[in-house]
């Protein structure tokens, strides 16, 4: 588990939930996150020269300045300010199922929106172009990718206006978006993926086929992962209003196996396709998702 290996102290989602605006949340998360990085591994892809440094074994040979070597007979590497022109598209699931949330903490939608805002803030700060597509069974909001300084506000305003309502059809908007993207970049899917896994995976592979890297944040509530209910309960589907009467003690094992199988299937099949898959429990810090994003971004550039 990636968050278990780190010793960083991240913001608890419960704390984040109490912060005021989405912008404040995003800035708090990202600034705190970046401050915690003592030695960023994500330098080296900017176009603006920063400094020369003597070569040390392990440095990328492509960064060696051969002209300096010719003049001085010594190896120097060039350091640049971080700056790219990566196009990032954040796909946020706003279907009814994302409205579920435990009593204390963020709902999956709030968690996803917060994550999208944080990613947007981070991307904007790194001068990547960031776009947002919100969808349920159709695309409900779309903001094209841009790296303009004012674009972040538009993204945050869009996120702020989103509401969950309808049923999910993840595959359909994925295919729609894959068809519209012309430039290689990065797609970040934030969803609970409670839909047909085969269709979703097929949609994600569509991006791969178009040469677009994909990172999937599978957002699930602790209740969905642990099923802590203890008394006979009538469960009502958030999207279809379908009801199932169940005795948790009797169905827990079956449910946990089902959800475990689902997660494992996504992890296995997406991993096999080169798609990054990250299961996010809404009670875990958002910064872990940022770390995962940055790793994927580095690979995409």
């Amino acid at each position: 588990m990636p968050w278990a290996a780190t010793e960083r102290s991240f913001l608890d989602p419960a704390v984040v939930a109490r912060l005021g605006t989405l912008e404040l949340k995003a800035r708090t998360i990202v600034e705190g996150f970046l401050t915690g990085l003592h030695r960023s591994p994500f330098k080296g892809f900017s176009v603006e020269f920063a400094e020369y440094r003597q070569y040390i074994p392990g440095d990328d040979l492509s960064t060696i300045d051969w002209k300096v070597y010719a003049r001085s007979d010594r190896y120097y590497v060039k350091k640049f300010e971080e700056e790219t022109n990566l196009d990032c598209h954040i796909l946020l699931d706003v279907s009814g199922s994302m409205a579920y949330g435990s009593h204390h903490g963020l709902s999956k939608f709030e968690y996803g929106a917060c994550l999208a805002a944080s990613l947007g803030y981070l991307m904007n700060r790194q001068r990547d172009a960031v776009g947002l597509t919100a969808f349920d069974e159709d695309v409900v909001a779309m903001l094209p990718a841009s790296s303009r300084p004012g674009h972040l506000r538009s993204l945050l305003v869009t996120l702020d206006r989103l509401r969950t309502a309808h049923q999910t059809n993840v595959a359909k908007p994925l295919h729609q978006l894959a068809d519209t993207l012309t430039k290689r970049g990065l797609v970040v899917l934030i969803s609970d993926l409670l839909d047909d896994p085969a269709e979703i995976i097929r949609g994600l592979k569509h991006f791969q086929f178009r040469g677009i890297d994909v990172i999937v944040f599978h957002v699930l509530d602790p209740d969905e992962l642990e099923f802590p209910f203890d008394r006979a309960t009538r469960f009502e589907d958030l999207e279809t209003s379908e009801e199932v009467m169940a005795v948790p003690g009797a169905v827990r094992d079956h449910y946990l196996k089902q959800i475990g199988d689902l997660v494992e299937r996504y992890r296995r099949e997406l991993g096999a396709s080169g798609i990054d898959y990250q299961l996010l429990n809404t009670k875990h810090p958002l910064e872990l998702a940022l770390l995962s994003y940055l790793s994927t971004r580095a690979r995409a550039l």
Partner: protein
Amino acid sequence: MSFLAPLFLVGAAAAALPIVLHLLKREPEARVKFAAVKLLKHAPVEHTEKRHLRELLLLALRIAALVLLALAFARPFFPGRAAAATGGVTIVALDTSYSLSAPGQFARAKQLAKDAIAGAPAGEAVGVVTFADEAEIAAKPVADRVLAASAVDEAGVGFGATRYRAALSAATQAIGSRSGTIVVVTDLQENGWDAGDRVSVPDGIHITVVDVGAPPPNLAVVAVRPQPDRVIATVHNGSPNARDARVHLAIDNRPVGETTVSLGPNQSSDVLLAAAPRGEMAAVSVDDPTGIQADNVRYAVLGGPVKPTVLVVSGSGDLSREAFYVQQGLAVGPGPSGGYQPVGTSGAQLSTQGGDRLATHAAVLLLSTRGLERRGREALAGYVRGGGGILIAAGPDIDGEVVADVLGGSSTLRMEVPEKGSGVFSSVFRSEKTPDPFSGTRALAPADVRHPVFQAFVPNTGSLGLVAFQRAARIDGTACQTLARFTTGDAALLECPAGDGRALVLASDLDNRWNDFPLHATFVPFLHEAVNYLSSARAHAFEYLVADAPRGVRKVPGIATINDDKLGGPRRVAVNVDPRESDAARMSVDDFQSAVTRLKDAGASEARVEAREQEDRQHLWQFLMAAMVLILMSEGVVASRTA
């Protein structure tokens, strides 16, 4: 089923707790809007009916456990058959004493008993008790009256004397905690109540007396005293008219003489039968075909000591000089053989001879410890420990320490005897004004009038108070029972256990030195009752009443042989009927009823005791607790499957 502590059944209301808790804690059906409902769709769904069944079973088990707990604490039991019967009981108590042995008398009594059985209220159980000296339940109370009637048919007149106390006690026991009636079929002999006899009967039991009628005119042989050259018999005429009585003497079943004596109304007379009594047994009979039959003959053993001996230990052994009153008092009297034969000895002689012959004496009177050395003390101690009785008169010749040696450590007797002559225990340590604790005239008052020693004085025990005691020893003992006290509060007569025997300790002498007891009419009865009591633990007599016949001897008049190892082997004894039963004096029904004490709530107390005994025997609460544990274990299993 009944309960010993029915209040605990209130605890069974706790069985409602699970239901109440269920109702109180019942929550509206939980509804949760959930995202992953589709993952629940194919989950194995538990059928509601099955779960409801399990929950009902759980509820039932929990309620059952609580109910069983309450039942166990209520101590249930099944009442016995007798107690379970709700109807009343009639017990017919039939007198079988020998006073009914006159021709036709007992047949009439049996007919009256049968009439009482037939006349018992319908639906009541009827039982039969036969009684004389002792009572016996001849037929337990049942609804079938044929059984009761056949028990009456099988009853026969015996040789015992009438004892109403035994009859009423047995009848009350047979009735138990129920209400009922005791029908006493008897000839209402006055002697049926012993002096001071009282019997307690629960208030709910009614007593009816059916009078069989006075016995016909009767002649009875009430005493036989063999002498070296003749046999003296006492014949009693119980009729209101003068009669001539023809008296016969048989020795070893051979007629050896007869004579006729004229007796006035209700008069007794000694009859001299001049025949040398050579043989083993004598039987004196009187011709009385119409009167009571059982008292027409009386037996006596020939050849043995006529009177039981009492060893009197005095200073020199000369009883005529040192124990005159005791000697004379023992020799006369109303004992079975006309008193006791005092045998005098001194402490020195006893110390020399040891205790080889002590066992032959009915009792020992210790009047002096002078010269009583260790061997003599040990002989006396062995005699008492072996079941003998000793009367100690703590007079001027008694040393308290020697007495303590004789009685052994278990008696805990302490005795302070004033110094001889001076009347001062220790003048050195006492001022002139301090009164002598041993001096001063005082009287004696029984502390326990029910004790056999005072049997002869009941109800006039005050006559003992006429004796003036000028001096007395101080006696005390934690293991001793105080039978009488002086008017000063000090103990006057103690009974101390010592081994298998017993000791009576009088705090003064018996020789008219410190008191005038021997000069009073109460002296001889006291002496005889004390010796009777002390000797009762040992079988020394050669004549027994039927009721007192030793173990192994049939309770019928005649000559019997008993084995007495302590007296050197078998010996012959005479068994005779109680002459008091020949007394035709009768009492009224009211007199009979007045001797019965009514106990309120006695029935309820008996019922409680019986209920407790039944519950103790059955121990149903243990089974209930075991069942509760099993149910709780089952509940655990079912609950774990339901969870």
